[in-house]
């Protein structure tokens, strides 16, 4: 792999583009090459992510595990285009996300990525419907269609009746389902969830996991971060992270192939 | 032991403790203190009254003027609800502190 890394760093823009096209055709949604994220704290360098190469195909269901502070969230945010890598290349759906400008990244987040957070991150003052509608607004979709699609997304997580409730009028599980509906509403290439069950009790957590299972069966590509082996075991592949590096990449028993 | 040697603020604790038994006036309080400490602790008016007034100001004790059998106006102090809470808190503190002090001081002597 290392030789490939150095090789790819030396490609010219045309070749990089060609590589992206190739990845897309092969159905590889996510591909990172020697991805680094380094934070400077005073005179100390913290390598939160240090040289990660991963490849995730369309339709995969991947769990990322690792001890606290190992860099899971950092990696997720790089994949989610919320953050830019210090070094390395990142192809999302054949496009070189690591080289993109702010506005392009915003568009990518909007169109290609559905984010689910541990603490839901819903807008407190907005109804469930409006929360789900939000990504569509930034996608520039007409209000008629927005409403229709948001309603459909909510009904797909069984929350049609709670459409007009504010977040603080919903239970934790319901809030997370709203967040998932919001993540799905734009039909993203990939659904990213950072400890989606972290703030929920076991029973509610399991309900959410069932929902993920269903979404996967419907063809969504899912990457989720978790601490709990129980949860991780429901994925079809587990990537173990340690000290910012991929430690182990295992295929679980649930995998069909 | 002279009250001056008492740890700062301890006199307040002692007053609260004694008033917790029953309301009484200043002089009686000084006598009771002497008696309860088996003559170890003696407190004169110079320390007693300022302490009483301070406690009254804090609202931990309340005062009331009564007429004694000898027809004198006598100022009776009693513990307030706040004072009771304060007493508990200070007693706990005191236990912790004295425990800590003995833990350090006593082994040296032995």
């Amino acid at each position, binding site marked *: 792999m290392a030789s490939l890394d150095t090789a790819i760093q030396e490609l010219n823009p045309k070749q990089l583009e060609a590589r992206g096209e190739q990845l897309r055709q092969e159905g590889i949604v996510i591909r990172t090459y020697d991805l680094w994220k380094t934070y400077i704290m005073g005179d100390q360098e913290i390598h939160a992510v240090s040289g990660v190469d991963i490849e995730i195909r369309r339709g995969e269901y991947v769990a990322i595990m690792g001890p606290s502070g190992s860099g899971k*969230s950092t990696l997720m*945010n790089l994949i*989610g285009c*919320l*953050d830019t890598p210090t070094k390395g290349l990142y192809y999302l759906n054949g496009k070189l996300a690591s080289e993109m400008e*702010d*506005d392009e990244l*915003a*568009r990518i*987040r*909007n*169109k290609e990525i559905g*984010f689910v*957070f541990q*603490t*839901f*991150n*819903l*807008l*407190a*003052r907005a109804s469930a419907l409006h929360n789900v509608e*939000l*990504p569509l607004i*930034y*996608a520039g979709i007409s209000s008629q269609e927005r409403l229709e699609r948001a309603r459909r997304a909510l009904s797909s997580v069984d929350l049609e009746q709670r459409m007009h409730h504010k*977040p*603080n009028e919903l239970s*934790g599980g319901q*809030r997370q389902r709203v967040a998932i509906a*919001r993540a799905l509403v*734009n039909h993203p290439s990939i659904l990213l969830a950072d400890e989606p069950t972290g*703030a929920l009790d076991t029973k509610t957590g399991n309900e959410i996991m069932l929902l993920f299972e269903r979404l996967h069966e419907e063809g969504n590509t899912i990457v989720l971060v978790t601490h709990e082996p129980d949860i991780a075991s429901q994925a079809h592949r587990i990537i173990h992270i340690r000290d910012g590096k991929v430690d182990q990449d295992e295929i679980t028993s649930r995998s069909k192939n | 032991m002279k009250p001056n040697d008492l740890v700062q603020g301890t006199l307040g604790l002692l007053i609260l403790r004694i008033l917790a038994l029953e309301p009484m*006036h*200043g*002089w*009686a309080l000084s*006598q009771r203190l002497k008696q309860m400490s088996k003559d170890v602790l003696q407190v004169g*008016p*110079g320390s007693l*009254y*300022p*302490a009483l*007034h*301070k406690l*009254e*100001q*804090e*609202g931990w004790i309340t005062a009331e*003027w009564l007429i004694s059998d000898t027809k*004198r*106006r*006598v*100022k009776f102090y009693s513990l307030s609800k*706040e004072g009771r809470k304060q007493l508990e808190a200070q007693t706990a503190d005191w236990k912790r502190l004295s425990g800590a002090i003995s833990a350090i001081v006593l082994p040296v002597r032995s």
Partner: protein
Amino acid sequence: MRSFRKWRLRLRSLLDRSQVESDLDDELRDYVEWEIDKAMAAGGSPGEARRAAISALRGMERVKEECRDARGIRWFEDTLGDLRFALRMLRRAPGFAAIAILTLALGAGVNALMFTVIDSVLLRPLPYPDSAQLVSIDSVRAGSDRGSISLPNFLDIRRQSRLFSKMAAYEENSASLRLPSGEPLHSSGAAASPNLFEVLRVRPMLGSPFPAEEDHAGEACSVVLSADFWREHLSSDPRAIGQSLTVDGKSCSISGVMPDGFAFPARDSEFWIPLQPAPDAANRGASFLEIIGRLKPGVTLAAAQTELKVIASRLEKAYPDDDNGLGFGARFYQDRVTGDVRPALLALLGAVAILLLIASANIANLQLARALGRKREMAIRAALGAGRTRVARQLFTESILLALIGTGAGLILAVGSLGLLKRIAADAIPRVQEIALRPEVCLALLVIAGVSALLFGLAPAWQAARRDIEAALRESVGAVAGGHNQQKLRDVLVVAQLSLTIMLLAGSGMLLRTLYGLLHADAGFAAQQVLTMQTAVSGTEPQDQNLATTVYAPELDQIEQLPGVKVAGFVTFLPLSNGSASASFLIQGRSNRSPGSQPRALLNAASDHFFSALRVPLLKGRFFSRADTLGRPRVAIVNDVLARRCFAGENPVGKQIAFDAGDFKTDPITIVGVVHSTRQTGLAEPPDAQLYLDFRQVPPATLWSQFLLKQIMTYAVRVSSGDPVTVSKSVQQVIHRVDPGQTVFHIATMQEVVSASVEGRRLGAILLSVFAGLALVVAVAGLYGVLSYMVSQRKRDIAVRMALGASRDDVVRMILSRALLLYAIGLTGGVVGVIWCGHLLSSMLAGLQPWDPLALGITTFGLLLVCFVAAWFPARRAASLDPYATLRAE
């Protein structure tokens, strides 16, 4: 509960000192008695008991002292602690403190300023004993302004009235004086009936007033001088009393010097002479006197008005020729002095009140923001057991501290700007020399500022402190922390600020536009490159001297010879400056009408070059010429207003007019020209009919000459280029050479004359603009604060939106559209306010257009720009947020 008790005890220690002291005595004595009892009970002798008592008593004073300390010190320490804490909190939030204090200082400062002006000018009684009894009496004729009263009518009123204890008549006057040293100078003062000082109840500080009711023959003239005049021109010499001073050529002995600050009827009155009955004083139709009377104690103004009505109808019946349609009006003398500026001052007071409101809204907004930001601090305090009262007390201390510092700074600001205001307002505000900051005003201000600071500062903070912690916690879990109601309240406050600011801005815009309109309206002449100066002959000239040919004409000729001078003119009453005179006249060949309904015109004597000096356009006929001399047929020039009024559809040139009243009877005068009208009394006044007589044809030794030439006359000198002031010296030299007794004063360019005529309006417009500018600053700071706060509170919100794909532009747009929304609502409210206030204002301030779309348009647009700038920074800050770091930080 507990703190309440403590306060009560402390209050008792403070208020009821003696009781506390005697209690303390009792308590300690009680101790001693117990000691004695104990000693006795122990079987000791009385001597031992006494010794015990003495030893117990020893040091009791110190005990008392310590007890007092124990009581007092806590309170002191608490307060000091609170203060120190408040100071620390303010220091920790320097931005907040600075904006709050500055805002309050501005609000309080301008209010102190206007309060002081209004207090000193409108509210404080005039500096005469029992000045509320002083009443001014005017004549009122149907369809005309208040006017003066004739001497016979005055004497009749005084004789018939039962409700006035005293009544005096006076006439504002200006005269050429000659000091005992021989130095000539011109000065203004008044000629008054000798009892004037008795009416006012002010005695000279030196010498005596006029001899009582000096006989009307007026052989022996006396003069009373102002303290300033005495100091400046007589070097404060007490021996000046009895010396003689020449007033308009007449020698008068100085009888007294008035005390400092005596200024009647005008601010610059310097001398008072007994009223000399003019030759036509017996003429009931010649109104030239002002009347001031003192009501008997307990008499109301309404009663006096009723009595005057009765007297007027009696006079009307007795003298139907002259007093037909006559009425008298009475008003408090104070209203006469200050009435003109009252509406403007009140409007300005309204403006500063609005400014204070805006400032208070700002403080409220800041406090709300802080209270929310301190929710955690409050929660921790509450968890540590601080009672709500304790927290409230701390907020209270903080608010009070802010209010005190702010108001203090405001007072300093006010004191600083008061001097400036007095200087620039000297000509625009009456009683300006009396304006001074009084402790009552400071106190009132402190109270108002304190109350508003508390209301606006403490209430929201208190409300925030009371917020349900449960709800707060619930809100913050998984959702973005809210404070929705607070945000709404803050929005409302900002909207109100913007509305009020628009009102002030539009108001000042209206005033400025009106002023600009006046200054650029066609005044009927060209003011550029003209120097004007007023002169007066000494008055010692022989009665029959022809001043026109011996003084004025040679002077004009020589002035025109001067290098740089293009043309020099001369007129009795310069436009927009020293008054006017009017007279009724007859038109030859028309049926004679009754005296009351004859046409009237403003009267002037002018030189041949006056019109070209001021570039007054000739519309028909010709100007005066040198050939129009005393012996030749008399000629006149009229203005277009008179032409239209009296000769509609005819050519006035060639028509003849004449005067027929008493001593003013003339032969027919031929109209030879029609000129454009000039604004005589004020730029806002519509032009009136004007009639010019050739100064060479004014017959000497008549009332005409007295009236039109032996007056303050004005030279208008047009220079060929450059600054007209450069010829001032040489022109004065010419005048001095021709007539050494002639005084020259009030030298100003014509542009300055025009500008001075709108001084009051200018001052009003400037002040309102300053206030509006301050309001703008404060309101925009408020908007900025709200948006910044919104951004800082909703960081997470914004980060979430960015995570969901909002671009930086989207975020900027979000904040800006928020600002725009607030602006739009504020604008709506402001425009409604402007419409409402515009009507109010225009009813108060003459010549103001209530609806001025241009001013409003500029205001709205300007405010939009400023709001945009104020919103831009928070918007940029929001857009530069790092979504990942923000989401991570929570």
